[in-house]
């Protein structure tokens, strides 16, 4: 009886896994279909590898520019997000000062603020500082909105850093800066990876913020470009459309497949400790 129950569970899970994977595999396969193949039923396999879809996508959707912009914005932002959050989290958890608790709550509160509440004032602020429509403006906004979550996760990781190690270092003559760089950072590498990955995925996948603050074609980001491409040509050029979607998906997918243990473990750790 128990065996039957377990069999049913396995079966349901396999169905779920198929539902999770099949659309993505279908996406990949369809991106290689020639235009004429789309008259045939959708679940058929492609007849060959029609790479032209990708070259059309690159030229018509300006994938090169979109990619370049998104890479610049995302990579710059995650570096600063980690740096700023790590130092602040260290100061709040390991150092002793009167307002550390208050600062913890102050910054963590930002996690509850949804992005769209800030759009209008941020728009006006960027306008005033002439950062509207620029990659730098996007970077600043992404850094500020990613800090609360990263800060919160890092405080969780730093809390588990044993104070004895820091004490031993201080006794050996380390000043606080060396303590941070030589001890805190190496010991919390797991936390750093989790935070950077989370920030990367959130920024790379973002639509709302990148759409609001940049409208010029030279500075557009990938997801915004994808959305307008779908709007323009979604109904006609199916092949290039699928190729563009693939291009938007591939980086995060690849990163995920390489680092998935770290990401899932980091998320799980944060959930259980927090």
């Amino acid at each position, binding site marked *: 009886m128990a065996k039957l129950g377990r069999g049913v569970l396995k079966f349901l899970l396999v169905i779920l896994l198929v539902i999770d994977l099949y659309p993505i595999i279908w996406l990949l396969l369809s991106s290689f279909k020639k235009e004429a193949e789309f008259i045939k039923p959708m679940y058929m396999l492609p007849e060959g590898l029609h790479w032209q879809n990708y070259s059309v996508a690159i030229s018509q959707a300006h994938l090169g520019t979109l990619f370049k912009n998104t890479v610049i914005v995302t990579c710059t932002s995650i570096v600063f997000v980690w740096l700023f959050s790590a130092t602040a989290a260290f100061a709040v958890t390991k*150092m002793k000062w009167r307002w550390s608790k208050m600062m913890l709550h102050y910054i963590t509160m930002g996690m509850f603020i949804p992005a769209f509440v800030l759009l209008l004032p941020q728009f006006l602020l960027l306008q005033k500082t002439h950062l509207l429509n620029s990659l730098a403006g996007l970077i600043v906004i992404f850094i500020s909105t990613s800090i609360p979550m990263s800060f919160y996760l890092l405080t969780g990781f730093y809390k588990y850093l044993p104070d004895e190690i820091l004490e031993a270092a201080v006794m050996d003559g380390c000043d606080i800066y060396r303590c941070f760089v030589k001890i805190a950072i190496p010991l919390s590498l797991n936390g750093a990876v989790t935070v950077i990955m989370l920030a990367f995925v959130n920024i790379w996948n973002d639509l709302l913020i990148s759409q609001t603050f940049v409208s010029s074609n030279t500075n557009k980001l990938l997801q915004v470009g994808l959305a307008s491409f779908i709007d323009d040509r979604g109904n006609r050029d199916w092949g290039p459309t699928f190729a563009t979607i693939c291009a938007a998906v591939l980086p995060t997918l690849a990163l995920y497949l390489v680092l998935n243990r770290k990401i899932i473990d980091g998320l799980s750790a944060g959930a259980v400790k927090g």
Partner: protein
Amino acid sequence: MEKVLRDKKAILLFMLPAVLVYTAFVFFPMCQSIYFTFFEGTPNVDFEFVGLQNYAKLFHDVNFKESFLTTMQYFLVTGGGWVILGLAVALMLQYGMKRFSNLSRTIIYLPVVIPGVAAAALFSKVLEVTPTYGLVNSLLDLLGLEQFIRGWTGDSSTAMWMVCLVDLWKGIGYYTVIFYAGLVNVPTDLEEAARIDGAGRLTVIRKIVLPLLKPVTVMCVVLAIMNSLKVYDMPVVLTDGGPGRTTTVLSIYMYKTAFTKWQYGYGSTIAVVLLILILVLTQAVMRFERKDGK
């Protein structure tokens, strides 16, 4: 040791970058948003103080009420689905598939990392009906179920359900992974003790595992509330708030009011109301946890 840890200059240096950026671009803008709700017009051009008029306008706004209900539907169906189905899948993983659990978790979490825009674009093709059948419709055709073929995202009776379902597909993995982490931490000796005392599998789950999972459940519910109420990517790309206004959730309504109609004051009001809704709901959930004294 103490002196090192109290080094004021170091504390300042460590805190300043984050605090500065956060205050200037998050905290201060939030205060400004609330301030804006008492005005109407375009800032720096013709902003005039209207007191609570924007809030009064909300009560009579049919569009607002419609968007509110749409958002609530999304919150209950997708938000609720995330938590309940996420837990169910985590339980299935724990009790049904221990051996391949890592591979399963990787596949289940996969849709979460896909950009919302890409997922919406992908599924708009999956659900397509003209000019050719998309994946779903051609499979229905294959199985001889032609009567079910329809324009899933173009039909006002099914459009919102499609948005809910696609986002459900995309988000379940996130909650499953969190629940699974909590499940794995349930001490096995407790379960075994109950089993020895004669409790069946389901009873063990109900009386021991679920209560021990409470903190994780609360966290998931809070996350689901936040994520479902601020949904934007999916309905915008899949159906652009349509057909008509059937999928215009509050965030889309706010965006269109503020950035296409340039009604900054009213747009801020919608945003602030949504913020209050999120805060009220999350506080209620967290208070519920504290009340049960864990």
